[in-house]
């Protein structure tokens, strides 16, 4: 056998700076995309608006996608039903917001600001609880069987959509944002939309919390170890299925929260919104590297930015551009931006 090569050997050109750049390359994709868009949009104030819109959209997609990537990483489960939690979260959140707003501000035309937090919590509690049942009834019987997983989780999604029709009727529900989250803060000729700022801050907070959990706590270490080699985690004496159920439930709750955020962003919700957004969510999970929360975060920002830049420049290509982005990134890094070690 030939000796194992040293990490940095073999490139010949290897230089500490080159190495550092290579390690940082996935993170640099986000600023690079922003910089490329600057000359393309032409107008700096439009660029700021689009960039913020892209980051906000990216953060919301990250909130919806983060659970999905871990669910796949940990148990190789392909959950096409994840979008159901997005829609259900949005409808539960909307019901709570409309009801509370009616109490707090009878006759008001918009939602009440104080109704938003309880609505988000309610959406997360309900979708988290549904996640428990979904895992038990739909996912558990098909562990390790990908084709069946795809079929049955899609079935779960369709059932959930129909249940939304049963409970909330077939019409879309308008969700006028409260005045405090409407309009923009204006700095010179740059307008920063308040709700987008709010979404960025909330998404960033969730990412940081997840990052700390995964990096600093024993549960987090177990999740990361389980993504790489679940068998070894079990051989060390931990029950990976219990860990998986926990991750599935948190992922479902976050999808529900993402649904509320997305609904407030669009100011309208429909039963199909979960299924529609799932196309982008899957692109994000694949771009990021299956099982990687950091990769998912970067992927979500790229997809959000790309959707907004092309939506402005060539509206017809908005979705196509993200598929193009995915192909490009996979050609460069076939395992995604931040591949996780997998046995």
């Amino acid at each position, binding site marked *: 056998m030939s000796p194992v090569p040293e990490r940095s050997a073999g490139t010949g050109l290897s230089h500490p700076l080159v190495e550092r750049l290579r390690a940082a390359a996935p993170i640099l994709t986000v600023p690079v995309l922003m910089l490329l868009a600057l000359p393309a949009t032409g107008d700096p104030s439009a660029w700021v608006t689009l960039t913020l819109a892209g980051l906000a959209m990216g953060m919301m997609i990250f909130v919806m996608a983060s659970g999905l990537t871990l669910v796949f990483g940990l148990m190789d489960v392909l959950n096409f039903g994840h979008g159901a939690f997005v829609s259900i979260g949005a409808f539960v959140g909307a019901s709570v917001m409309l009801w509370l707003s009616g109490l707090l501000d009878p006759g008001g035309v918009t939602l009440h600001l104080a109704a938003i937090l309880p609505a988000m919590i309610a959406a997360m509690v309900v979708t988290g609880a549904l996640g428990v049942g979904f895992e038990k009834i739909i996912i558990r019987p098909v562990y390790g069987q990908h084709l069946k997983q795809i079929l049955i989780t899609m079935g779960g999604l369709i059932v959930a959509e129909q249940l939304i029709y049963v409970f909330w009727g077939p019409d879309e529900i308008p969700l006028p944002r409260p005045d405090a989250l409407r309009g923009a803060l204006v700095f010179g000729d740059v307008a920063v939309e308040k709700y987008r700022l709010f979404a960025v801050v909330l998404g960033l907070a969730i990412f940081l919390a997840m990052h700390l959990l995964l990096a600093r706590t024993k549960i987090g270490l177990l999740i990361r170890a389980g993504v790489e080699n679940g068998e070894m985690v079990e*051989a060390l004496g931990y029950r990976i299925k219990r860990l998986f159920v926990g991750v599935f439930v948190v992922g479902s709750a976050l999808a529900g929260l993402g649904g509320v955020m997305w609904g407030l962003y669009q100011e309208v919700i429909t039963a199909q919104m979960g299924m529609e957004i799932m196309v982008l969510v899957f692109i994000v999970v694949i771009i990021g590297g299956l099982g990687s929360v950091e990769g998912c975060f970067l992927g979500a920002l790229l997809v959000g930015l790309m959707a907004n830049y092309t939506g402005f420049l060539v509206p017809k290509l908005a979705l196509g551009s993200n598929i193009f982005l995915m192909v490009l990134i996979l050609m460069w890094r076939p395992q995604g931006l931040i591949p996780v070690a997998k046995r």
Partner: protein
Amino acid sequence: MSEPLLTLDGVHTHIGHYHILQGVDFSVPRGGLTMLIGRNGAGKTTTMRTIMGLWRASRGAITLDGRDITGLATPDIAQANVAYVPEDMGIFSDLTVRENMILAARDGEPKDDRLRWIFRLFPALEKFWSLEAGALSGGQKQMLAIARAMIEPRKLLLVDEPTKGLAPAIVGALIEAFGELKKTDTTILLVEQNFHFARALGDDVVVMDDGRIVHRGLMADLAADEELQQNLLGLSLEMHQ
């Protein structure tokens, strides 16, 4: 003599449609080191995985310390105080050396004196304590895998081919480490192809072929009997001398 710590009684294991273990019988005496040797494909790894509950025995019984563990889930077997070092080492390469050790220590933070003992045996682990385990060399990964299994006192240690692909100097370090472990109460079942290593450490020896046990005895007796070695293991030993 007291009753053996681990006993396999007529164990059969199927993997898919293949009938791999075909009635494996042997026992591992308490406190010693039992070597499990045999040709490539004899079923050594399958035996270890079956004991660990990673494959399910389709027939037969596995008894640990008087308790029937056949069919228990892997985490339950681990919690019966068994540590396992798989053939591929099972290192978590995205985690640091330290984080790998933290997960191996089920009862909380690794104890200081235990860590000092491990660092004395494997100084590289102290040096690379905060490095991602994926960046370690092959030998260092093997040391980490064994160190994980030693971080808390265990009743039984299952180690699958620790010398695979390692340079002689590192094999020497492993011999020393297992020598130290043998001084503790831990019972060890070790799969090995390297006869030099097996002879240096084994108290008892079990030889496998084609999914069955073909010889049981003292390591010293087998080491002294070249003809028996030839019969049982053929040329495979020579190649690993």
